[in-house]
């Protein structure tokens, strides 16, 4: 039985080669897209994709720059598992959309993502939001004070309202150095 599953011997070299190429390509794409850095908390990670530049720039100019990084808001902080699961899921979609050129001109946050952010606002600001003295005698106190998305009112926190790819054309964001060597550039110029 098991033997049947073994590939014929003469496949061995090509298979190793092909697997090697795949592995190499995978490493290359990981390197090129800096996907390794996706696991970090450094906001520069997100700017890897130049399309995150407006968000980076607006965050960088906001009162939250000193106190938050992207993941403080955009990744669940209720438990470690959830954190990395969400990151992986999101990261995969972003990478796929980006490489397949499916990104829209204007990115909208999805409902899932918005809920995560909202919970994070509440997490940090619960002191201002919840008064223990009142929580005791007001029904639905917490819900009433947290049921609307914070940025229904705080529309400018932290990215401002104008949010297209072109909204911060001259913003100075730490764009990565080009990893494409000059000869390849010449070559791809056709």
């Amino acid at each position, binding site marked *: 039985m098991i033997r049947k599953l073994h590939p014929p011997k003469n496949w061995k070299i090509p298979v190793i080669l092909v697997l090697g190429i795949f592995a190499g390509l995978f490493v290359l794409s990981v390197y090129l897209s800096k996907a390794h850095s996706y696991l970090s908390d450094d906001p520069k990670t997100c700017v890897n994709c130049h399309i995150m530049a407006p968000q980076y720039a607006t965050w960088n100019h906001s009162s939250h720059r000193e106190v938050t990084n992207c993941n403080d808001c955009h990744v669940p902080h209720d438990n470690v598992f959830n954190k990395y699961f969400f990151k992986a899921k999101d990261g995969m979609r972003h990478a796929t959309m980006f490489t397949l050129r499916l990104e829209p001109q204007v990115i909208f946050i999805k409902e899932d993502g918005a809920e995560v952010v909202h919970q994070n606002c509440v997490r940090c600001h619960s*002191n201002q939001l919840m008064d223990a003295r009142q929580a*005791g*005698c007001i029904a639905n106190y917490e819900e009433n004070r947290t049921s609307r998305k914070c940025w229904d009112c705080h529309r400018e926190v932290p990215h401002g309202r104008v949010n297209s790819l072109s909204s911060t054309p001259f913003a100075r964001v730490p764009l990565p150095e080009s990893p494409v060597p000059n000869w390849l550039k010449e070559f791809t110029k056709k």
Partner: protein
Amino acid sequence: LASSIMERRAEASFVNVPKVKLADFEPRNSVWGENFPREYQSYINTADTTFRSKHGGGAMLDMLEIDPRMVVLWAGYSFSKDYNQGRGHYYAVEDVHNTLRTGGPLNENEGPMPSTCWTCKSPDVPRVMQEKGVAEFYKGKWARLGAEIVNPIGCADCHDPETMNLRISRPALIEGFQSMGKDITKASHQEMRSLVCAQCHVEYYFNKKTVEGAEYLTFPWANGLTVDAKEEYYDNIEFSDWTHALSKAPMLKAQHPDYEIYTHGIHAQRGVSCADCHMPYKSEGGQKFTDHHIQSPLNNVANSCQVCHREETLELVQNVYERQDKIIENRDKLEELIVRAHVEAKKAWDLGATEEEMNDILQGIRHAQWRWDYAAASHGGSFHAPIETGRIITTGITIAQETRIKLSRVLASKGFNQEVPYPDISTKAKAQEFIGLDMDALNSEKQEFKETLLPEWMKKAKEREDSWAIVRN
């Protein structure tokens, strides 16, 4: 710094035990205030009348002085005696005592106004309604309930004392929703932050047919919330508030359709509630809470507008003024045209016009003035929904002028083919004289009421409230 942080933490971790057990229908705001000092303190600020904006604010504005044309528009109706722009909720009861519209009753069966007037003035209202029944509340003269209604608009009008949830305390709003086939209990929390205001800040009329002997407070919403839908509603039931003293037209009075007009504006369409602008959050000692100093947001741009808009205060205020100015330019014009129509109609009657000749004309005056009043009575409308308010005024102008064209033909047919002179109504006093009001009599009857009946009411009320035990924890 460290000590400040500690202080704030201490404040926040202080655990609350409500100080007072709030009775169902507790009307005294100060009693609620023992449990909720921040909300109460800010509420008390509605007593402040110092802020005056270009067209509004907490200051008491005598509208008849500012704009004496209104006296003529309301000839034959109590609003021509006295009309101010509303000030803070704190004064709601006091202003009913003071206004010349309510006359000078000397006993509980006197005075020109029904008890229904009280409905939007006090948290004593739900208490009395629940004690006596709703229809019963709406019966008789306003003087009948003078001793009962003493606390100005407050906590029990909007809150459930048990849960502090927002709640609707006035039957008229619930019935208004029903008449549109809607269920108000399905309203979301965010909608409730406007609907508590819609209990009072809406156009209304008194229906004498609902319950025999009662002037039943009714919102004319069955056909919809637009000015056109309500006009149709009133026309269908052939309702009129009064007959105009000069033109004899069967008039409608529009009262503060703030909520209805607001629903046509972009803010409402984007989910912004009344409370977002008039009761924004406020921060004090590490906590934020709802600012109960309900007032013109122009006195509080930082916490209201600027949370959503990053523009400078001056620019935002300018945005409001620009809208108000553009609307008021044409509203003033419409006023003048309707004054002319009333005067011309009177001339036509004087020259012997017949009912048949005048019927269409009177309908026109009714509709034009209804539209003017709808736009004028909502003091915030020019900002809440400028495009809709503009549209309303424009249709009013078309109707007013169409009517005056007909009038000019009727007048010509009676041999009068020229402009009817515009009366000299350049001041409130002149205008009131023009329509034949005896202001001295009105003022002195009010004075007598204040010196005789009013103190009695206050005494009775104090006795009643003193008899209620306050249960402290």
